[in-house]
């Protein structure tokens, strides 16, 4: 990692995706799925539209507003999963979670907050003081080492977020929406091969 955390956080790729978000827009529902993710702590909001056909994410659109990290992460995510199979998309989500040094349980915890059902600190005046703390991401570097950064392409640009624990929530907002969308697709499509 570079010596300046800030430069690591606001890399050029991130700022580019923030200024020129990819796959911006909406789609008709149905046939697409629409999933909202909202961070009540800071007001970040991401809406993901997914159009799946025969197990392939044929199209994805993103709406929403928020900070550079939440919005660039959504844009980077859309570019990464568009045209991929749902299984491939799941793998990308899993890799991204590792990049954020979030173990499965943590992802579930933050998901509660995103769906607005958190029973603590929802109305905190803090931007995002609760949740993930330094101790919980103590194994950050270990978890990140499991990830093949080269294979992640542009997504790897978000790795600097890990050094700013309160911003991890911003980065994973769109990803929680995507994961929820994939769940919905699996349930509604009732594909026999997708159950584990």
């Amino acid at each position, binding site marked *: 990692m570079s010596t*300046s955390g*800030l430069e690591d956080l606001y890399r050029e790729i991130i700022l580019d995706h923030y200024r020129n978000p990819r796959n911006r827009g909406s789609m008709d529902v149905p046939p697409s799925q629409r999933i909202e993710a909202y961070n009540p702590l800071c007001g*970040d909001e991401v809406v993901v539209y997914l159009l799946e056909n025969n197990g392939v994410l044929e199209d994805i659109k993103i709406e929403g507003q*928020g900070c*550079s990290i939440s919005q660039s992460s959504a844009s980077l995510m859309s570019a990464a999963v568009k045209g991929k199979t749902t299984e491939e998309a799941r793998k990308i989500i899993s890799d991204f979670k590792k990049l954020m040094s979030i173990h499965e349980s943590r992802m579930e915890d933050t998901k509660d907050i995103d769906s607005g059902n958190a029973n603590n600190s929802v*109305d905190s*005046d803090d*931007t995002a003081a609760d949740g993930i703390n330094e101790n919980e991401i103590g194994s950050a570097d270990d978890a990140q080492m499991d990830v093949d950064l080269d294979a992640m392409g542009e997504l790897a640009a978000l790795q600097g977020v890990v050094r700013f624990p309160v911003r991890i929530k911003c980065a994973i907002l769109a990803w929680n929406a995507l994961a929820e969308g994939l769940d919905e697709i699996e349930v509604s499509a009732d594909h026999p091969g997708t159950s584990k």
Partner: protein
Amino acid sequence: MKDATTTTQLDVEAIKQDFPLLSKGFHGESIVYLDSAASSQRPTCVIDTMSGYYNYSHANVHRGVYKLAEEADRLYENARMAAGRFIGAPDPAREIVFTKNATEAINLIAYSWGMHRLHEGDVVVVTEIDHHANLVPWIMLHEARGVELRVIPMRDDYLLDLDNLEETVDGAKLVACTLMSNVLGTIPPFRKIADAAHNAGAIVVADGAQLVPHAHVDVQELGCDFLAFSGHKMLGPTGIGVLWGKADLLDSMPPFMGGGGMILDVKFEGIVPAEIPTRFEAGTPPIAEAVGLTAAIEYLDKIGMDNIIRHDTELTAYTIESLKETFGGDITIMGPDTTENRGGVISLALKDIHPHDLAQVLDESNVCIRAGHHCAKPLMRRLGTSATARASFYLYNDTSDTDRLIEALAKAASIFG
């Protein structure tokens, strides 16, 4: 507030020495703390007083007959007197209730007075610039009791629109209004609102969380019936808030929470509540916090509240001027464009940089500002945003803090250019 000519300049360098964080730094690095509207720092004397109390004087209050317990009683009741005198309460011994914070103080009114006095169709008036602590309890009464809520709106110049004040408060039972907005810095003409409310037969609740720490506030001059404020925003500890209420009103109210300390007698058939103010202090109260609050009030009194508000006003004027000079059209200040009727809180937007990003870049320069909705979501909606970046001042800030704020903002502007 007294005439500015009777005030003296604060010796901020000397004041900073009373706050180890500000004189010695955060992990050894000098820090610019611009988040006092959320919570102030506290001087060493407050902390020393509290640890002195814990080390040598602690016992539970209202229980013991031994000398140590009497000492704790005396210190706790002294705090009540100090808090009352600080806001000009005519009868502090009966009119000051210690709570957990200003929020609990307002909830106490909503539950104890509101739940018993308000019925379906009764009118409660709130303002668009108030924060959740002075909105949510009333909205909950609306939901629970069918109370009608009316809202005094904000004008585009960030002041309250009082053109229809008489009509708005007409028939109201209660009017709740902040003494100073925690987002905009706006100090509404409270007396005017209180007079209109009283003419309409309503009682008046003042939320003093922001103004009481910064200016001379006198409940009799304000003309309010209740005043709520918090210890931790006025150099005191967290975990203590103050409710002042007119004695006859408090006396007419049933208990808020039940437990030890708030009753005269308990039978399985029923209870006999205690006299005010202990009727509203169920369980062991925040004793050490009350003792710390006394020390904070003594510190503020020594500096002088008129000197503090003048200092805040001057620093705010300097900062707004510097922001405009440095960033021109790129800076938007969401607050009154005046130094009159305005406190030391500046909500700002720089270009279209998200407040969250702004706060993050500023943090790299150890400049602490707040980014978020500031627990004022209705106001955020009115401002057409989900969050603002907010810098707020107190007696330990000076123009060097402003200069570092502006330097850090310039850095953010270059990153997100």
